[in-house]
C-alpha cells in the first residue's frame, strides 16, 4: 500500500513523463524505429509504470491516478507487444504487384472452391434455360437481358454509335463501379455467415451468368455474347470470385477446422489478407467499370467483334499471368496493407 502519495508521485512522475514523451514520439511518427538503447529504456519505463500501477491496485480510490497509469501502461503495452506490424511505409505499386497476387496464391483453394460453386451455378442456370425457356424471366433480374437475344443484338447493332448510353457513359461507368464494389463488399461480409451466404451469392451469380450465356448461345449469338461480355467480364467476374475467395478465407477462420487456436487469433491472422484481397478487388472493379461503359457497349459496325474478343482474351490472359507470376521475387519488405 502507498501511504505517502506526495513521495510516491514526486519520485515516480519523472519516469511517467519520460514514458509519455517516448510514446508520443512513437505515435507521431508511425515508422519510427527505436534503437536498442531506446527500446531498453522504453521497456524499463513500461515495467516501472506497470509496477506503480500494481502498487496502486489496493488504493482504488485514487481513480485519476489509476486511470492515468492504466492509460500509460496500456499505450506502452500496445507499442511494445505489437509484433504484427512492419514499420515500412505503404507503397501502392509494391502492394498491388507484390502483396496482392501473393495473397491470392496463398489462399488458392478458397478461390477454386468459389470458382467451382460459380461454375455449378452456371451449369444449373444453363440447363434450366435449356429445359424450360420460361424460367429465364425468373432467373434474370435485368430487363435488358430478359428480352430475346436476337432482338437485342439487332437493336444494338442498328443503333451503332448513337446508342442509348450516348452522353451518359461516365454516369453508367460510375454506377457500375459503385454497384460492383458494393456487391464485392457484401460478398466478403457474408463470410461471417460461415460461408453459407457466400455460397448462395456466388451460386446465384453463376446461375444468372449461365442462363444469359446459354440463352445467347442457343439463339446463335455466341459472337455477340463473347464480344459483349469478355472485355469487362474477364476482369469483373474474376474480381467477384476474388471477393468470394476472401469471404471463404474469413469463413474458414471462423470455423477453424484443424487450427488449434482461438477464433480471435484465427481472425487476427487472416485480417491483413482479407484487406489486401478486397483492395485488389476494388482496383479490378474500377477498371472493369470503365471498360464496360466505354468499350463493351460498342458493337459492330462501330467496333468489330474480333477486336473486342481479342481485347477480352488478352486481358484475361494478362490477369491470369499477373495473379500467377507477379510478386514471386520479393525484393523489398512485404508491402501489404499492414505496413501502412
Amino acid at each position, binding site marked *: 500500500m502507498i501511504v505517502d502519495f506526495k513521495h510516491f508521485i514526486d519520485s515516480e512522475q519523472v519516469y511517467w*513523463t519520460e514514458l509519455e514523451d517516448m510514446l508520443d514520439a512513437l505515435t507521431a511518427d508511425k515508422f519510427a524505429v527505436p534503437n536498442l538503447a531506446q527500446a531498453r529504456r522504453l521497456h524499463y519505463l513500461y515495467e516501472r509504470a506497470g509496477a506503480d500501477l500494481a502498487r496502486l491496485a489496493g488504493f*482504488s*480510490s485514487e481513480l485519476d491516478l489509476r486511470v492515468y497509469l492504466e492509460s500509460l501502461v496500456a499505450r506502452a*503495452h500496445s507499442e511494445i507487444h505489437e509484433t504484427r506490424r512492419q514499420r515500412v511505409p505503404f507503397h501502392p505499386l509494391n502492394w498491388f504487384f507484390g502483396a496482392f497476387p501473393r495473397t491470392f496464391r496463398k489462399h488458392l483453394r478458397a478461390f477454386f472452391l468459389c470458382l467451382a460453386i460459380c461454375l455449378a451455378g452456371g451449369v444449373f442456370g444453363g440447363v434450366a434455360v435449356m429445359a424450360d425457356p420460361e424460367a429465364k424471366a425468373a432467373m434474370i433480374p435485368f430487363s435488358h437481358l430478359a428480352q430475346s437475344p436476337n432482338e437485342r443484338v439487332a437493336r444494338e447493332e442498328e443503333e451503332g454509335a448513337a446508342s442509348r448510353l450516348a452522353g451518359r457513359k461516365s454516369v453508367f461507368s460510375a454506377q457500375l463501379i459503385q454497384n460492383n464494389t458494393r456487391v464485392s463488399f457484401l460478398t466478403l461480409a457474408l463470410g461471417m455467415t460461415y460461408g453459407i451466404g457466400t455460397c448462395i451469392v456466388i451460386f446465384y451469380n453463376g446461375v444468372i451468368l449461365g442462363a444469359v450465356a446459354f440463352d445467347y448461345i442457343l439463339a446463335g449469338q455466341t459472337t455477340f455474347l463473347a464480344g459483349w461480355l469478355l472485355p469487362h467480364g474477364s476482369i469483373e467476374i474474376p474480381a467477384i470470385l476474388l471477393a468470394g475467395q476472401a469471404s471463404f478465407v474469413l469463413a474458414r477462420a471462423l470455423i477453424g477446422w484443424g487450427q488449434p487456436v482461438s477464433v480471435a487469433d484465427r481472425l487476427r491472422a487472416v485480417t491483413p489478407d482479407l484487406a489486401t484481397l478486397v483492395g485488389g478487388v476494388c482496383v479490378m472493379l474500377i477498371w472493369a467499370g470503365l471498360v464496360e461503359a466505354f468499350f463493351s457497349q460498342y458493337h459492330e459496325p462501330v467496333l468489330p467483334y474480333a477486336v473486342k474478343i481479342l481485347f477480352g482474351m488478352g486481358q484475361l490472359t494478362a490477369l491470369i499471368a499477373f495473379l500467377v507470376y507477379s510478386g514471386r521475387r520479393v525484393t523489398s519488405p512485404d508491402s501489404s496493407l499492414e505496413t501502412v
Partner: protein
Amino acid sequence: MTRCQNRLELTTGEGITFSYRLASPVTRALAAIIDFLVVAAGVSLLSALVIPFLALAPGVGTALYMLAAFFLSVTYPMVFEYTWRGQTIGKRLLRLRVIDQRGFRLLPSQVVIRNLLRPVDQLPVFYVTGGLCCLFSRYAQRLGDIAGATVVIIENPVKRPTMENILAGKFNSLRQDPLTMAKIRQTITMTEADLGLQALLRRDDVEPDARARLFAELASHFRERLNIPENPLEPVPDEQFIRNVLDVLFNVNDTIRQNLSGGGRKRS
C-alpha cells in the same frame, strides 16, 4: 483477457492488469448517427463543388459526384479511425475509441475489415444485426468487430497526476482535531489497524454488497472504539471513514500536508 461488468480486462505478460470500459450499443448508435450526419454534410458539400462541372460536362460531373460520394461514405470511417487512432468525429464527441481486442495498436487491415463488414451488420435495417450482436457478444462487438478483432471502448479523460489532483476532495475531518488524532493513535491496536488495512487492500476482490457490509461493520467497530459518533450533517461513507482512520495512523508526514494545504484545512 476477461470481461467483467462491461469492462475488458487485459493482463500483460508481466502480470499487470488494466481495463477498458466497453461502449454500449446505444452510445455506439449515437456515434454512428453523428457520423452519418457528417458524411451527409460532406456529400452536400461535394454536390456544391460539382455544380460548375455539371454546366461544362454534365455526364462527367455527375459521374465524378457519384464516385466521390461513394468513396467518401466508404472511406470516411476508415481514414478517421486510422489517423485518429480508432476515432471518427462521432466517436470522438462521445469519447469512444476502437482498439485492438488485446490492447495492441489498431492496424490498418483491422480498420478496413471492421468497416467493410458493415453491410451485414446493417441487415435487415438500421444495424439491427450489429446491435443484437453487440448485446449478446462477450465484448459488446458487432460482426465487423469480431472479424477485425476490435472492441469499442469508452475513454476516461486522463489528467496528469499532481498532488493537488490527488488530494482534491480528500478532506480528512479527523485531522482537524489533534485530540482525535492522538486518541486514534493510542486506542487502535495493530491488529485492528491491520484488519482495516487488509480490508482496503482487498476491497476490489469482493462483491459490491459484501464490500459495503464489511466496511459498515468495520466503521461501526472503529466509531465505537473511538467514541466518534456519526455526524448526520456531514456524513462520511464507511469506507472513507476507515481510510481516514488509517491515514491518521499510517501517514505521519503531516508537515508536508500542512504546507501543501497552505496551513489551512488538512487533507489526507
